[in-house]
Structure formats: C-alpha cells, structure tokens
C-alpha cells in the first residue's frame, strides 16, 4: 500500500500529492442543498457537476439533484450566456425549484462570464419569470478549497435574500458551518432543548438524510426556507460556528442587516460545546436546562472512565480547518497529544490556532495548512503515531503503516455509514467520538495481541 512513499521528506513547490482538499464548487453545491427547494446549478463543463454529484452521493448515500450548463468547446470560446439561459428555462420548466443557485467553475471564471448580467438579461427577455428566483456565487476552483466554496454560497445567499424589516425579532441565527446533516439535527435539538427561537442556515438535515417512503422527492422537506433566510435579517444575533465556513456569511448579514454575530469554533468536544451552549444561554437569556447539564455530565463521566486509554496517545489528524481545529481542542482536553495536524485548505491562521491549542500539551506539534496527505504520511513514517484521524482516504495511510488505529472523521467518508446517521457535535457527539477512538484502540489490540494478552474487560 502506497509503496512509493518514503520517509524522506522533500519540500515541494509545484506538486500536490494526495490532497487534503478539493475545489470550491462542491462546497457551494452542498451549501445550496441546505436551502429548501433549491436546485444547485454548476456553470461550466458537465464533468464538474457529475463529479460533485457522484462524490456527495457516495458520501451521503442519498440522491443529489443538481444541474449543469454543459459547456462545449463553442461555449468555452464564445461565453456561457446561451447555455445558462437555456439551462434556466429548462430547469424551471422541468424541475420546478423554488430557487436556482448558480455557482461558477474554473472554466466559466477563466472566460469571465458575468453571471448577474446573464441572469438579468434572461429576466429582461422573459426567459425566466419574475417569481422564478435565481442567485449566483463565484467559486473559481483555483482559489481556496471546497470549504471556501461552502462559505461563499452561504454569504451570497444572504446577500441576495436576507432583509431587515426594521423590526428586530427575538430569534437567533445559527450558522452550523460545513457539518453533516446529523450534526445539523443535533444543533437544532440542542437549541430546542435550550428553549431559544432560532433559524439554522444552511440546513441539510431532511435533505441529505431522508427516510424511505417509497416516493422520491426532488426537493425534500428539509432545508432552510427562503422565508427564513429573508427573516434572518431581523434576528437579533447570529451564532456562527466554524470560522472558515461561516464567518463570511455572518459578516455579510452584519453588514447588510446589522445583525451582530458571535463567531465560535465548531461545537466539537467539551469546551467548544460549552462555548456553544453558553452563547445560546447568553443570546436567549435562558438558563441551561437540566437535560443539557446532564448530557454534559455524562460526557465528563465517559472521559473519566476512558482517560487511561487516551492519556498521552500521539494523534495525527487531517481534514478541513474548522473540523481539525475543533477536534484538536477536544483531543487536548482528553489528554491526548496531537502531534501533527494537516489541512489542504490555504490560510496561515490554521497553523497558529493549532499551535495555540497544543501549546501546553504538545508544543512540538507540526501544523500545516495548504499541505497534503502525502506529507502527513511521510511525517508519520519519521514520527510514528498511535492514532490517525481523517477522511476516508486515511485508510490507505493507516494500512500502509501497519494498520494504525484509524478513526474516520470529516469529508468525504465513502466506505462507512455512521457519519450520516450519528452526530459528532455537542456533548453526545463527543461521547460518540470517544467511543470511536477507544474502539479503534481496542480493535487494534484484539486483532494484534497474542492470546495471553487478550482481555475480556477493558
């Protein structure tokens, strides 16, 4: 497995090997699916849309409807105006969405298609009717990563649709960041438990984790409604989780509608969930209910029960900045040693943040942004670790290094089902993470230890 990978690390200027990021448009597609009745539209070659739909489908095991401008060589030379206009007419006639969310690709960005102009012209020429909503976001693939694509789609949605009526309502906006539908469910459950009025945006629960009824719905019941998105401008506060995924949207809403925002890390692990609960408590002026206190105490109990297995264990982690940062915090809380943290997404803030989190427990941590899984793998060859945490591509590294205990976490995971059903957010999600981490250790021992060392009780 990965037999060409050696321990000799060469700094590379040009070659990405085994990336830890993908391109912006897929993030825009995922975020747009979190809007009720929305058809994401990829303005570029049809391959982009095909790849994104396939990838999201493999991760969620759910239908992913999205359309494309199907550029040919002619469109690439003369511009995508005709393709987009024809696409919009077809989409509204055949698939009847409440809104079409157009995102660009490297192709349409390079040729410089002016999407608002194309939409405006289609409207003027009657190709799209006044009540047929179309929005756009710019997501060139040669900038940022899939996470910034998500962030751009969220911010653009607010720019297009959020409004301030002048009357502030007792509602808190919750921006969950790029998390799983199960996580979005958990955020909503916790907010309900806290007793606050809220709008969650975007919300892919009920869209990418639907049940089986025998009927296919192109636009399932889930997703933040356009009415809610509009009303977010009247909320008195926004709690934005995951700085990279949610900050731009929070800033946009602040700028457009004067809704102040509080920026938090993703509520993964103890202290990040504490911060989330506390933010809701302060925003809603509500006491923390006993049920949430109890959840928290159950997490502490499990942390204490399992502490001996986690103490000082060396962990390598890779994935998206918001996820890796929040989880690294939790690893430190559990007395583990995050020795290396890697993301493919560019941005130096990540490295500084990881170093700060690890300053006490593991000051020697290797933190790398705009890096890749190949670098992480080579680093592990030089500095063996006890545990690897990352998306599904991590299993190849884990196998190459003698089946290091491996916990799947992040996007994408195409070979397991748990992530789409069970949240890793909040106190109960943290308990699930402890379960997964200790299971990985125990399974490793059960598989590799000699008979005399196999324990019934752990």
């Amino acid at each position, binding site marked *: *497995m*990965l*037999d*060409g990978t050696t321990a000799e690390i060469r700094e*590379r*200027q*040009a*070659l*990405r*090997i085994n*990336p830890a990021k*993908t*391109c912006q448009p*897929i993030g825009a597609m995922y975020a747009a699916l979190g809007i009720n009745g929305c058809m994401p539209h990829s303005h*570029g070659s*049809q*391959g*982009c849309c*095909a790849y994104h*739909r*396939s990838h999201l*489908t*493999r991760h969620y095991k759910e*239908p*992913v*409807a*999205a*359309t*494309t401008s*199907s*550029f*040919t*060589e002619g469109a*690439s030379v003369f511009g995508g105006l005709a*393709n*987009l206009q*024809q696409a919009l*007419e*077809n*989409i509204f*006639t*055949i*698939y009847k969405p409440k809104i079409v969310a157009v995102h660009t*690709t*490297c*192709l349409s960005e*390079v040729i410089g298609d002016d999407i608002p102009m194309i939409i405006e012209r289609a409207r003027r020429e009657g190709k799209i009717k006044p009540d047929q909503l179309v929005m756009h976001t710019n997501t*060139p*693939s*040669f*900038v940022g990563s899939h996470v910034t694509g998500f962030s751009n789609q969220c911010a653009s949605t607010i720019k297009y649709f959020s409004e301030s009526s002048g009357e502030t309502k007792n509602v808190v906006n919750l921006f969950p960041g790029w998390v799983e539908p199960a996580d979005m469910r958990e955020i909503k459950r916790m907010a309900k438990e806290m007793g606050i009025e809220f709008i969650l945006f975007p919300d892919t629960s009920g869209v990418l984790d*639907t049940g*089986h*009824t*025998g*009927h*296919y*719905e192109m636009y399932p019941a889930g997703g933040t409604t356009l009415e809610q998105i509009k009303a977010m401008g009247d909320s008195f506060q926004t709690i934005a989780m995951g700085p990279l995924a949610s900050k731009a949207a929070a800033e946009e809403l602040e700028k457009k509608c004067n809704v102040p925002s509080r920026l938090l890390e993703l509520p993964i692990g103890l202290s990040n969930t504490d911060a989330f609960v506390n933010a809701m408590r302060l925003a809603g002026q509500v006491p923390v209910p006993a049920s949430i206190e109890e959840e928290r105490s159950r997490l502490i109990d499990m942390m204490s029960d399992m502490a001996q297995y986690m103490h000082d264990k060396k962990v390598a982690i890779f994935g998206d900045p918001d996820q890796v940062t929040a989880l690294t915090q939790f690893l430190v809380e559990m007395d583990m040693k995050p020795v290396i943290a890697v993301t493919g997404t560019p941005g130096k803030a990540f490295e500084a943040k990881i170093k700060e989190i690890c300053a006490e427990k593991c000051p020697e941590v290797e933190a790398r942004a705009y890096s890749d899984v*190949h670098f992480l793998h080579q680093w592990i060859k030089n500095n063996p670790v006890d545990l690897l945490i990352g998306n599904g*591509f991590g299993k190849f590294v884990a196998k190459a290094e003698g089946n290091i205990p491996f916990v799947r976490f992040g996007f994408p995971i195409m070979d397991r089902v748990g992530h789409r059903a069970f949240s890793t957010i909040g106190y109960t999600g943290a308990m699930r993470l402890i379960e997964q981490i200790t299971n990985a250790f125990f399974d490793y021992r059960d598989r590799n230890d000699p008979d005399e060392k196999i324990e019934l009780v752990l």
Partner: protein
Amino acid sequence: MSDEATDSPQAHEGLVPSAAEAREQMLEIYPKKTRRKREKQMLVNDPGSPGEIGANSRTVPGIITQRGCSYAGCKGVVIGPIYDILHITHGPIGCGWYSWLSRRNMTRIRKAGETNFLQYSMSTDMQEEQIVFGGEKKLALAIQEAYDEFHPKAISIYATCPVGLIGDDIHKVCREMKQKLGINIFGFSCEGYKGVSQSAGHHIANNGVFKHMIGLDDTPVEGKYKINILGEYNIGGDAWEIDRILALCGIKIIGTLSGGVSYDDITNCHMADLNVVMCHRSINYMAEMMEKKFGIPWFKVNFIGINGTKKSLRKIAKYFGDKELIDRVEEVIAKEMSEVRPVVEDVKTRTSGKTAALFVGGSRAHHYQDLFEDMGMKVISAGYEFAHRDDYEGRDVLPHIKMDADTRNIEELEVEQDPARFNLRGTADRKAALQSEEFSFSDYEGMMRQMGKDTLVIDDISHHEMEKLIEIYKPDVIGSGIKDKYIIEKMGVPCKQLHSYDYGGPYAGFKGAINFYKEIDRMTSTKVWKYIHAPWHDAAPAAEAAAAPEPVNA
C-alpha cells in the same frame, strides 16, 4: 429476449402504455427546443431495421444528465488504470481529487518494489497566479518533483478545462521534460469541455496511448495463441475472471487495455496475433489503428453473460483454427457450465418474466442484456450514456454518420502501415483467409438489433425521463450509476450500479455470471421495500382489536 409466461403485473398487456405512448409522456413536459432535441434520442425499437438515433450529440443545458466530461473519459477511464505510470493532473485540485480511487480499476503490482500509482492523486493544484501568468513552469517543476520523489518509468499529464483556455502547451513541457529526465513523458489535451461527453476523452486517450506507448517494445512473447483484450477495465475483477478462463484454454493475454495493465504490457502488446474488443465505444479507435499499423485484426467479443462468453471463446478458437484449441475451449465451456447451470436454473425460477431497464456507459447497457436474458428477464428499455450511433445501430452505419463541430475538434490520427512490423506473424493473411469463410472482423452489430421490438431506446437519459419510466413501467430492477442509484431506490426499485457493480463483482465470464445471477435474485427478491409501511397504517379494525393488550395471566 424471453417470451416466457410471467406473473409480473407490468408485463400484462394493456396495463402499461405502449412504448410510443410512454415516450410521449416523457417528452411532454419539455420546452419546444429541448423536446426537439430529446425526440431524436428516444426511439421505439425495431430490431429488424434500427432507426437513426441522435446519439453523441450535445447534452441540453439544464437537463440532469448522467454524463461526465472528456477528462473523466481520458484520465478516469482509459489511461487512469495503468498502474505503473505516474499520473499528474494539470489544473485546479478538483479534477485530480474526484478521479482518485473513485473507479474500481483493480490492480495487482507485477513485482515487488513496484508502486501502484492508482493509490495516489497528483496535481499541479493550479492557483490564480498560474491562471494569470500561465502554468507551464509549475507543470515542469511538478514533473521534476514527481520524478525526484518516485522515479517512475513513465509520467502522464492530463489537461483540465482552464489549461486549454490559458494556452499552456502541455505537450511542449512533456517533450522538454522527457528529454531532460530520459523517461517517457506524454500529455493528453483532454480538457473537460471537449466533445459532448466522456467519449471524446476515450478517443483522445486512444490517440495518446497509440502515439506514446504502443510498439515501443518488440520483445517476442512466448505462447501459441496470443491476444489482447481491448476495452476491459477490470471493474470488480472482471479482467481477472477473463484471464482465468483464457488461461484454462491455453490462450495468452499480452495486454488488457486498460484493466490491471502495466506500462510494459502496453508497449509490448503489438506482438499479439489478435485484438478482441469488449467495450467497442471506448477503444475501437485503438483496434483500428493497431490493425492499420501492424496488421492485427480485431473483432468484437462479449464476456458478459454465458452465451456471450461461449460465443466469444469459440470465435477466438476458430480464428486460430487449431483443433487442439477448439477442443480445449469446448472442454472448458463444458466444465464451467456444469457449475453455472444449476445456479441459473434455480435463480430463473424466481427471476423469469421480471423486467429490467439499463442506462449506462457505452457498452454495458448492451452487454448486460445477455445476463438478464440468461435469467429469463425482459429488458423493457435501455440506452447508453455516451455512446455513438454505431453502438446502437451497428458499425455498418459508420459511413453515414455526419461529422459535427464537437467531433471535428478531436484529432483523428493518420496511421500508416509499419513496413517492418506489419503482418509480422501472418495475421493479415489469416484474416484474409478467414474472411472468405464468412468470419466477421471489425464488427459490431449494436444494441438495437438485439433488443426486443417496441422496447424503448433512450440515449443519455435525463432525470425526468428516468422518473417517468419508473412511474410508467416500475421495472423490477434498473442498471445505472451512482448519481441515479438512490433516486431510483427511493422510488422502491432496486438499482444495480453497472459502473462500480455496487462494490461487488466480478460479473464477467462464468464465475462472474454466477455472481450476477445471485445478486439480481437478491435484489429483485428483497423484502426491504415491504417494510416501508408501518403495520399501524393499514391494519383492519379486527386486526387492531386482536392486537390489543391482554392480561398476561389470563
């Protein structure tokens, strides 16, 4: 197709609209221009005289299509599976990422110490700076870094959409780096916007493989009967099952293009006596070019389904014309069939009369009809994702296919006879001799001649048409791909992925057929759809009363 009696409701005449009516129902929602276009791609079949289908034409923008792009066809399908070439995608990160391990090209390294580069994804991860100032320097440096890191025997470069637009000359960079590093380095201009689907990428890939790999190594190959299998990608281990069967017959495969294949196999595969073609769509170009240059004849085979497998083996044996081989093939068939027969007979008791629809690829929607036929199932509708008219109507239509702008942009290589290596082993003479005995070469009769009368042929099926099809026919199983799978299954119809096999397989050859029969039997007999309704929804009052709690000690 089977005409056996059936208990499946959709097979009863009268309950289901005719194919023409179904077609009309699918089309009626479309705006005028879209309708005009789709009409040409949806035909009511007449196997006796296949109609002209508007295949390999542009996808209508805004239609939810199954299709992908030229890059996917080139890097993803044809070249990507060659495990000992180091593959670098030149472009922003996405294209390299999505084609990383996402196609199930199974591979075993040939000897210890080799690297299987399919486990890696390499890219120039193009940034805004390269878009503005050009990416050639970064590409050259990436090649150098890849060489320093892995020392591969060959490096292959794939262009993505922006590369063509900003005008990077990847071929110049490849030539310079080839000279500098002394290994084979070549590029593919397979920008995603080229052509109308993956198909353009197949052609571009064939051209590159032919130009840069075929014929480089003239080392003679041991073996009495030497062939290449073209257009077999070893999804789920199909190529290995074909290898197994041919080895039993005593036939040597030099190269399988490109499933589980090595660079060395490809450079040496012109030493074969025959090319047999599995996926006509993706690789007929290669078969034609190899015949022109080396005089290696080709014919179409199909190792999907027992009848196809038997026919293909017998035809290969007949080509060599050796009694020993002909007898050996019959022995192998007899032995293998003794294992297949009881399975298919058992499965048939449950699958006979059931219906299937297949929308996939450029040959699978045809090949898999044989397997359903083996099970007594009826294919009510089928179509390809990216095939051309010849794959539907047969190769005799080739002279009548009009050249359009999208096709014209794909290079057609000028191939000449190789004076030193043409007909080296008398293959061209053997072809000439056999042709007089009515042995068909360079043949493919297409999908439509095999399909039943009044079935519906739908090219590049759209999401809407698929929904309507299910609503109208409710087939017992649909063969399709990942993007459709869960849409179809939400509607209560099992969907077999025929690109990835749902991570099962192999389905080729005899053992593969057994796997497929069992899998389709499982899928069409599954109880899971019956669980959708909770018991309290349709319980009769009497049943409700009967289920009321009773004292436990009554």
